[in-house]
């Protein structure tokens, strides 16, 4: 049985060519889906695969598709979230670079399943280079007749447009992404209505993550149950773990859901560089609660991480060794959320800047006794009161860093001394 799906041909420049992909059985799944399956059968396979959204929230992909109202007279849209701005995550970039046709084939299948004839791929503006690679692949596929009018003579039309963002983390949030796609600033929308009911231009819209869609061809080809069997129960299949920070071999590792974090760090990513000791790991991108070194025996899947108070998020693993000053690390993250808060709703707009300023002051040795309580309180006041999840994302690291490494923070505040071993 195959151990890798998407990463089989990573770092092989030939693999991004259509001819290579076709030789590998590419676009067969899409052709099968369109010619031999009903949209419902396609969706059923995806539901059976237990494939959960891989952009952060972990919502079951098949069920999301079912939210499209059956009777809407408006056109339906498929939007691919390829904004990938969560610090620590870079898997989508690898898909664009090495296996763009997996994504494109997944798009055909998903668009067929939801009845969309227009798809937008929203990529972050910094990925211009990678968007061009995707565009080249798309052009090849169009030439081959996989996109456009009347695909494979089924009467199904599909047009794909690659849309570049312009540098805003918030546009990875699905409703902000839609606003951005409509040419507006990326201010998240109030919900309900959810995008599946009223999304892009007020029409039913399904937004899937790049990685999610890229796995769909394999699911259709080998069946949903096969994919589900690759992972732990309720957490289907494989996923791409991005590993960065103080590891010997940072990169993307395609492993079954539920692979222990320790194994990912020490076996696949080669362990900590320079023989240092591990101090902390952020398991799922910058906004997920940090884990202490003694917590890394957790299985990397949605439920196991949630059980110990963290999140799988986008599976961007950031590894920090003993030389890391966690106050500094948190200040960097706080600066990030301050920079990226869209400014629409009060708690996030004012709170992210406040937290960043307190942390900077602490780093400057100007901390005062109440600072840590204040940080926790401000984070607590942001959490759960904002329009979108960015507020929560900004608050979670503050909670987890301060509660799990309180001594380091207190040492900084009270003694102006950093406990990190240099």
């Amino acid at each position: 049985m195959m151990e890798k799906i998407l990463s089989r041909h990573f770092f092989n420049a030939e693999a991004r060519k259509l001819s290579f992909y076709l030789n590998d059985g590419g676009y067969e799944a899409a052709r099968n889906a369109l010619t031999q399956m009903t949209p419902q059968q396609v969706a059923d396979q995806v539901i059976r695969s237990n494939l959960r959204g891989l952009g952060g929230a972990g919502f079951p992909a098949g069920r999301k598709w079912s939210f499209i109202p059956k009777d809407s007279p408006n056109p339906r849209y498929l939007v691919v979230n390829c904004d990938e701005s969560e610090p620590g995550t870079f898997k989508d970039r690898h898909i664009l670079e090495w296996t763009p046709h997996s994504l494109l084939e997944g798009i055909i299948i998903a668009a067929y399943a939801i009845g969309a004839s227009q798809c937008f791929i929203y990529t972050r503006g910094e990925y211009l280079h990678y968007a061009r690679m995707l565009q080249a692949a798309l052009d090849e596929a169009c030439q081959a007749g996989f996109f456009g009018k009347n695909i494979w003579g089924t009467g199904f039309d599909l047009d794909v447009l690659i849309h570049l963002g312009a540098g805003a983390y918030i546009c990875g949030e699905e409703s902000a992404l839609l606003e951005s796609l409509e040419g507006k600033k990326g201010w998240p929308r109030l919900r309900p209505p959810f995008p599946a009911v009223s999304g892009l231009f007020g029409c039913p819209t399904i937004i899937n993550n790049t990685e999610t869609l890229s796995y769909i061809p394999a699911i259709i080809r080998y069946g949903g149950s096969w994919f589900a069997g690759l992972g732990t129960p309720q957490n289907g299949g494989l996923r791409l773990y991005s590993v960065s920070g103080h590891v010997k071999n940072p990169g993307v590792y395609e492993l079954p859901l539920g692979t222990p974090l320790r194994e990912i760090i020490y076996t696949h990513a080669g362990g900590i560089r320079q023989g240092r000791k591990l101090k902390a790991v952020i398991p799922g991108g910058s906004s997920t609660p940090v884990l202490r070194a003694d917590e890394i025996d957790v299985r990397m899947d949605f439920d196991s991480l949630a059980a110990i108070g963290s999140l799988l998020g986008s599976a961007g693993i950031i590894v920090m060794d003993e030389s890391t000053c966690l106050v500094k690390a948190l200040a960097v993250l706080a600066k990030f959320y301050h920079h990226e808060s869209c400014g629409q709703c009060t708690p996030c707009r004012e709170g992210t800047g406040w937290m960043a300023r307190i942390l900077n002051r602490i780093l400057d040795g100007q901390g005062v006794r109440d600072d840590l309580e204040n940080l926790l309180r401000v984070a607590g006041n942001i959490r759960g009161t904002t329009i979108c999840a960015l507020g929560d994302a900004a608050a979670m690291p503050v909670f987890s860093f301060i509660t799990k490494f309180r001594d380091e923070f207190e040492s900084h505040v009270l003694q102006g001394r950093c406990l990190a071993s240099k």
Partner: protein
Amino acid sequence: MSLQSFSDRLLSEISEILARYPQPRAALLPILHACQRESGYISRDTETAVAELVGIPAIDVRETVSFYSLLLDKPAGKYHLQFCTNLSCTLLGAEESVAAACRKLGVHPGETTRDNRFTLTTVECLGACDLSPSLQVNDDYYANMSAEKVNELLDKLK
């Protein structure tokens, strides 16, 4: 001042972009990207002209341009150095690369050298944490930067 100052090439690119979107406003970001590629930044006049093209109020274009960090409302140097200073890159010493670049170019982050060749900015995650510390110069990524590599690169770019 308005559309007259747009080159024919740009105008035809814009009309091509407009044709691909179901609503003109949705084409705003691609059009702005096109304008920025043409002149290096988006001037207030360009904003007004684009607003006219897309058929939306000029303030809406202003809002959009000011919201996105990749859209510049003042010219950047020939080489726009964007150092990622997010967590993974900082962990591996991004700040040293930034400091080295600042020293070599004699500017602070956010500034442009007097000869308009380099603009140095620190940016948030570039989505290249495996290449940490990473640097984007215009559209190209540079991996595993260090003070020495920054100096080498700057020498080459000069």
